[in-house]
């Protein structure tokens, strides 16, 4: 069952002569529980692709279907709600809310939904991420690695359909990078969490099950390396 379907997705920036085709007619699908890596050089359009998958940008044409829902058919409010529940986004620069505690940052999607947080779920996530001691701290009291873990926690907490990570280790030292990737892989395997990672680092890409290469806005290669 395809948890994600991308159909003829295109994104053009600018108009007329200055038009730039960031994505040109991209199509592919992802099954639930897959660990996909999208790789490409700088300016290849991979970040654009990720953002379109995450519903934080609007395509010029094409469709994105997450769990059978055509997300660009939703209005802004519906899309926002959908994002809360079904999409987890992890960024290179953590992007935590500086005035909320670690716990609040992690549970943010559910708080926005006015949902009660399942303490067991929270504990599980926090445990795995090793953040038990830091729950009531503010982001500026954490190291880079810890902050990235918090964003992973936030991305996961509501068991989203897909988890998207944009260069998650870009800002971390090698030790932390290793740990973060381990965590992501663990979530993917243990909880069958669909994971799509964008990177330009081949070493990271080789840890995935499937690699999609993007070049000049088009899919250049689509390989499954771990069936």
């Amino acid at each position, binding site marked *: 069952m395809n948890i994600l379907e991308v159909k003829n997705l295109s994104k053009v920036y600018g108009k007329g002569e200055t038009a730039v085709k960031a994505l040109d007619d991209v199509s592919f699908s992802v099954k639930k529980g897959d660990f996909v890596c999208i790789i490409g050089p700088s300016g290849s359009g991979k970040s654009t692709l990720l*953002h379109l998958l*995450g519903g*934080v*940008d609007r395509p010029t044409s094409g469709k994105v279907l997450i769990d059978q829902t055509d997300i660009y058919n939703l209005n*802004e*409010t519906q899309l*926002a*709600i*959908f*994002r*809360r*529940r079904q*999409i987890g*986004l992890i*960024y290179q620069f953590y*992007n*935590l*809310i*500086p*005035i*909320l*505690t670690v716990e609040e940052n992690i549970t*943010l*999607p559910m*708080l*926005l*939904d*006015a949902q009660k947080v399942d303490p067991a779920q929270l504990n599980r996530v926090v445990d795995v991420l090793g953040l038990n001691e830091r729950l*009531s*701290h*503010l982001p*500026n009291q954490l190291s880079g690695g810890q902050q990235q873990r918090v964003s992973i926690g*936030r991305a996961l907490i509501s068991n989203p359909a897909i988890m998207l990570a944009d260069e998650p280790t870009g800002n971390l030292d090698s030790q932390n990078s290793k740990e973060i990737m381990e965590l992501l892989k663990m979530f993917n395997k243990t909880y069958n969490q669909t994971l799509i990672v964008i990177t330009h680092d081949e070493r990271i890409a080789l840890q995935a099950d499937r690699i999609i290469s993007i070049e000049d806005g088009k899919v250049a290669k689509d390989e499954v390396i771990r069936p």
Partner: protein
Amino acid sequence: MNIINKVTIRHLKENKRRSLVTIFGVIISVAMITAVATLGVSFLDLMIRQEITDNGEWHVQYKNVTPAQIEAIAKDSETKSRILSSDGYAVLEESNNNNKPYLYFKNYNKIGMEHFPIEVLEGRLPHNENEIAISEAIVSNAKVEYKIGDQLTVDIGDRWDKENGTTLTQTDFLKWKDEVINEELKIKETKTVKIVGTIARPSWEPAWSPGYTVIGYLDEKALSEKATVDAFVVLKKINGSLYDHSEKLAQAHKIEKVYYNTELLRYYGVTRNDNLRMTLFSLAGIIIGIIIIGSVALIYNAFAISVSERARHLGMLSSVGATKKQKRNSVFFEGAVIGSISIPIGILSGLAGIGITFGFINKYLQGALGVSENLELVVTPSAILIACGISILTIFISTYVPAQKASRVSAIDAIRQIHDIKLSRKTVKTSRFVRKVFGLEAEIGLKNVKRNKKRYLATVFSLVISIILFLSVSYFTDNLKKSLAMSQNDLQYDIQIYSSQLERNDLAEFTKLDHVTKSTIMKEAQLEALIEMDQLPAQLKTRIKEQDLTVEDGKFPYFVMLYGLDQESFNAYAEQIGVDAKGFNQQDTPAAIVIDQTSYQDYASGKFIESKTIESEVGNKIDLLTLPQGNTENDQPKREFLSTIVIGALTDQVPMGIHTPSLGGINMIVPEATIDQLAIDPEAISSFVYLSSTDPMATQTAIEDRKETSVEVYNVYQQRQKQEQMILLMSIFTYGFITLISFISVANIFNTISTSISLRKREFAMLRSVGMTPKGFNKMIQYESIFYGAKALLYGLPISVLIMLGIHLSTNHTFEYEFSLPWMSILFVIIVIFLIVGSAMLYSITKIKNENIIESLKQENI
């Protein structure tokens, strides 16, 4: 120019919007200071010119001086010019106006004719003692056909009151008794004079004076040794020492009476009434202080924002080797740039703005209030220099702290881009309550407000300043209005006609004249009453103790003025105060409306005081006693009981024509019929007619045309004009001020909020990407503005109240009344604050909202 300054200028150019808003705010501030200084100077100048036009230019008057004394006055160091005048009356035989049977000779020396406002209509002014110029009213009003070239032989003398044995002046009515003139002329000299010109009726001649003005020539060289004239002195310098100087001069030369032109001197700021001066200065000081504080808040904020935005640049400069001093000076440089643009523009626009306002006001003034002089823009170099100096100082003070902060920005701080330094849990702690009741978005909004304490404080501070400014200024305005009203005895009528002899029906005829819009016929009787001690107001009890006044049997003798209004006026009055007029027409125990509030000037302290006249209730009875006739100094006053009246209503509103009494007096209003009922000696009743008219001068002419004897006419229209003029001007001034001050505050708030929001672009994008709906986003921003507004009001309102108390106390030197909070203004302020904060946020949000989440996330604030 060195590189740091170049970077500064470039930064200013790139943040065009914020730079422009800051410049705008500073321009307004400078303009206001300039305007205040210029307005004050110009206004005083107008008052001076107007006063001189109306009443002539003189400062000190020495009455009845001999030539020797005149010599001494002329030689005095402070005397600039010396005017001599003398006066006298002569009978105008053919006068058709029975109330004006005299010619009033006013003789001036040459200088005097230049300094007193005399408008020549035909011919010229007299050049020697045998020439005169006559008032055109002699022809138009007395209907005596004098022409230029006519010769008159007149016996000139002083008016003498036969009954009381005193000299009468131009301000005294013609004395009648039983339709016969009850005064005579004590002849001083006989002269033959030739008419050489006609003048307009002088403005200094009261409408009710019994003599038509004739201008004569006073030849100082021809004065005999013993002759006495009045000398008026125009001083060289006008300052506070003139009083002592004049009094010393008078003492040295045995001059008995010295008078001062307080009306004119007041506008130079040299009044004897020290309390008034202190009041003026304290109020002016407060107002200017407030402008400065408001401006400092704006400029400080703008520069604080600029520094924190440039932190990265400054850090980089530091890492490249800029010294502390260089970094600090970059802020001063920014201040200088903004100042050099804003100050000249500000001064020019301040002058222009005030000049335009004058143009606008002048048309209005001349049309509605008949002021003959124009407001002229008086630009003194000192006013401009002061404005300049204050502005530069303000900018310097405001940039000092940000400059110090800039000097301390190190390379590391900037590179690491720590925007929110030292955030701790405690700082952003909010109670669970907020989330439960208002929702998560509200909680985030509140935390946002708390996070950057310093910037939050700065925003709140500028909001607080706006609140304080508005409330203080509007309280000050209301205060002034009230003080003016109190000090000038509210006169609600244009013309008062007094007669001790006319029948009521004859009096009623006056109310039917053309132009009369409202009229009251009033009978007035003076009576007494003994009032119990427990019904006396506090001030009276104090005075009784202090002055050891006589109390009879635990009761204090009150002076009662009983007024009987014509039925129509009484009904209107009763309706006005919300009482049923019928209840006062009962036969058995007459009921009266009692005025229980009064404002008067306490002559001992010079203060104006508001107080109750009596502490009593509706339904209480008061015994009216007649005032004994004859000499009361030696005998025990023999009062006779007249009637009991019951208090039908208590009010603080007075009907037209009634002045409130001092302490120990009380006014009672009854219908006419009641007075007729009470057996009061007709001799003790005076009758008045009060008229309001659309054209008081025409009405007065109509009254005079009737040629009623024993009628005295007061035209107070002119007096009231001045009062209204003051209040109008003051209102224009203060409301303009409030508007401009608000602009400064709005600029400030706008700057702060829009910057704070654009700095958080990334966070907002983050929240949206995590799934905050547009509605939730709006909610967050709304709550943030509500919290800002609420916090600002929390601080602003109490401080404003304190300042209001301060203003109240400062005017307490001269005017004493109770303190009351202006609730409407407070409500208005609350609404406006939320509007301002809300719109500033909305505007900033709208700009961000439509931006792409991704763009924001990737973007940095340059």
